[in-house]
């Protein structure tokens, strides 16, 4: 089983937002991107990706539209909204603070 449960709580949301930062994507591509970019270390449970996407959409951080995929199939594309961009910034900053703090502790120990 993919170690998706090992992802820190709330991290998945941040990863999705980050993945969408360059431009719109559909769900499958988002999963692929996260996997590739993490050198296949982060394998997100594909089943839990969609609830997360919907959650972000309901919060207004991403917007979904139907469009044509690479192979011309109808697919649902997600894109960051202005609020989503702000949220991503906030989460990245938070993440930096957190990891920085954890690193400090680890190095000091």
């Amino acid at each position, binding site marked *: 089983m993919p170690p998706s449960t090992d992802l820190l709580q709330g991290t998945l949301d941040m990863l999705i937002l980050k993945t969408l930062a360059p431009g719109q994507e559909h769900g*499958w591509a988002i999963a692929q991107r996260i996997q590739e970019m993490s050198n296949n270390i982060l394998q997100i449970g*594909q*089943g*839990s990706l969609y609830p997360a996407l919907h959650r972000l959409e*309901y919060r*207004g951080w991403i917007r979904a539209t139907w469009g044509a*995929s690479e192979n011309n199939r109808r697919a*649902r594309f997600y894109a960051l909204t202005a609020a989503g961009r702000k949220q991503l910034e906030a989460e990245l900053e938070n993440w930096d603070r957190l990891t920085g703090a954890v690193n400090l502790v680890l190095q000091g120990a």
Partner: protein
Amino acid sequence: MLSEWWSRIRFFVTGKKRADVDEELAFHMEREIAANIAAGMSAAEAKRRAMIAFGSRERAREECREERPSYFLESLGRDLRFGLRGLWRNPGFTVMAVLTLGLAIGMNATIFSLFDQALMQTLPVRSPNELVVLNFTGSRSGHLHSEGGDTPGHVHEFSYPMYKDLRDRNTALSGLIAEAPETLGVTWNNHAESVSAELVSGNYFETLGVPPASGRVFGSGDETAPGANPVAVLNFDYWKSHLAEAPVAGKTLLINGTPFTITGVAAPGFHSMVWGHTPAVYVPLTMEQVLTPEWTSLADHKDYWIAIAGRLKPGVTRSEAEASINPLFRALRAEEFKDLSDQSAKDRQDFVGSAYLHVDAGAKGFSPMRGDVQAPLTIILAMVMLVIGMAVVNVASLLLVRAAARAQEISVRYALGATSRQVLRQLLAEGMMLGLAGAALGLALAPEALRLLIHQLSINMEGELPFAAVLNWHVLGWSLVVTMVASLLFSLAPALQFRNPRLAEVMQQRTGTSGGGSLKFRRSCVALQIGFSLLLIVVAGMFVRTISNLRHVETGFATDHLLAFDLNPTLAGYPGNQVAPVEQRVLDATAALPGVRFVGATNDADLTGDDIQGDMVPAGYAGKPDEEFDVELPWVSNGYLQTLGVPLVVGRYFNASDTATSQRVAVVNESFAKHYFGGAQQALGRIVARPKKPGTDASIVGVVRDVKHSSVRDPALATCYTLFSQATRQTGLNFYVRTWQPPDTATASIRAAIANIDGKLIVGNLQTMQETIDANLVAERAIAMLASVFGMLATLLAGIGLYGILAYSTAQRTREIGIRMALGARRTTVVGLILCEVLMLAGGAVAVTIPLAMLATRTVRSELFGVSVADPAVYGAGILIICVVAALAGFIPARRAATVDPASALRTQ
């Protein structure tokens, strides 16, 4: 943040189509499979891998749905639908629970509404929090017309000149208003009626911010030279009930025989700046002399008769206002002091030096009545809380019985994957539904209950009670809070039981043996119910005894066969010098009626809570320094003492030879004679007079026994009776008629006889003495009545609860009983076994409750009369009632147990 909420709301409304989600997921699988094939897998393998990578598609779908903003409501809707079905299937249980809750919540809303109206609501005026009421400490000299007040020692009444000076010369208030209550005779469409009225300052409505509902209300210009402006404003309720909201502005109304022009009607909901006053008409203070010619208070510094209230200027606090107004007050007092007869340094210190004007919060209005109702209402509200506690326990134990039957259902739900949170939520939803249904029922009943209660309380009462039979949002909010808390509590009982997912096993293990957690809990429930009932019965018992004691208290005169009414010729427009003659005609006409033994009259009504007090001292009496000996000073007719039957000690009663022109005479009671003369015999023939009042000297011709006067609770005061025909002033009188027959048989002929003298004369409060006494005991009656109702209800609930638990435990012990009987136990032993259980349970509850009840009743001690908080009869009766109910509840299960057939009992289970 805002866009986030907007987005949620948008999706909450529109949602997401199921097909869209399916299509999205399908697309994902397709791409994954395609990618796998591209990586060189076979079609079957590609599909298998894709499915593994994705996990359960159904779960993903489910989780997507759970993310929806409306998911919470959807699941709540499901819980409610499911709960509703369950409740529908058990109509008996549901009806019982909803009825119990409905009654409790309805009672709570009813009582809380009274509580809220009396103690919590602010006046229905503009910015009530700016209002202040004024009262003062310091000595005074002259007349005080007082209704009482919130703080003992503080005087809430002022003279009109003092009011005017304070109003015109203070700097802290944006307005200072004044009012004085008065009973006036109003004639409308040739129908004369006495109504309560309010004499008010011109700026009254303006400062309070009460607009007219029709026409105009008074303005400052309406407070004119004395007697120059006969105008009136009507109260909205009076306008509605008596004049059917017809246009009245400009019409003429006959008040005390004088035509007044109606200027308009005050806004609905407004009564007075004094909570408890319900005037029908408002007239300017300056019309006082026209309405009550005998009183000329307007220019008199020594007549304390108006209550005053003010509105703070914006930004001024109460303490600032108090600090700024006191120098003015003291200066005005110093001015007044110059005209007083006592001029010693000490008098000056008392009158000027220690005079202090208090500026108190006035948002709820000044009220001499509020203090009287606070204790009774608090007691009743506490009792209602007990009833609610009782209802909660009752519903909880009902739910618990139902829970036992639902164990299987719940364990199946656990087996199908429900989490304990979901089960808990389901149970809470059911509980809330019961609670809300109960609240709906209760709130539907409450207005009617409130109307009935107000009606019940106002029987025999003079005037209107200041309560309205409408529920406001305070009451609704409070009911909702009570409902929620109650629902939470009683839902929790079964919910706690079902937290364990291994429920099925647990329930299975339990069936064999009696006892177990559920039974223990139910036992505690029943014990609590018995405790609550006993507490309520004890309180009811104490107030029933209080009432009975008060009704049969030794007043010193016979209260049966005695009829009372009041009549004031001034209200019919009689000028001062004709008041006494027409009163004498009423006395004579009534005395001539068949069936009448005696007729008498007094200006100081008996047993109504009223007093007329003052100084009356022997001629040439040099009082001890600082002696304050107030005596009761009634003006009576010469048949009054005989009518009441006040026993004569020495000398004689007043008689027909005492007339307006003969030697002035007085009759005193024993306390008076003892205080001033050392004994009854010594008092005879002595002269008494009111200090510094010429023409009040009278010779004592008789001494009578002390009798109760103000109320049945208060001991008799020293009293000096003089004749109204010899009095310095004319006034309305209270008439007493001693009859041969039951007193109410004489009412019609009395009315006819008086109408025969003058149809305009208004006969007020015609009722028997017993009714007068009862009207004065309204608080005690209310508590006794409600406590009895609550106590009965509680006992009934406890009885049902007790029966339930006995039936259950007996059924569980069938096998044990069978064995006992097989081994030779007699039926009586078995019955004894069951009754023993009853007694243990009831006895334990009673033993715990009694000390608590003694503590609780200690808090109501001041309201009791002639009953100790440990009254053995009350407790004995309470315990007896509990025992009878317990025995009744135990009877059926015990009989069933006694008729158990050992053989079949052993075969069962």
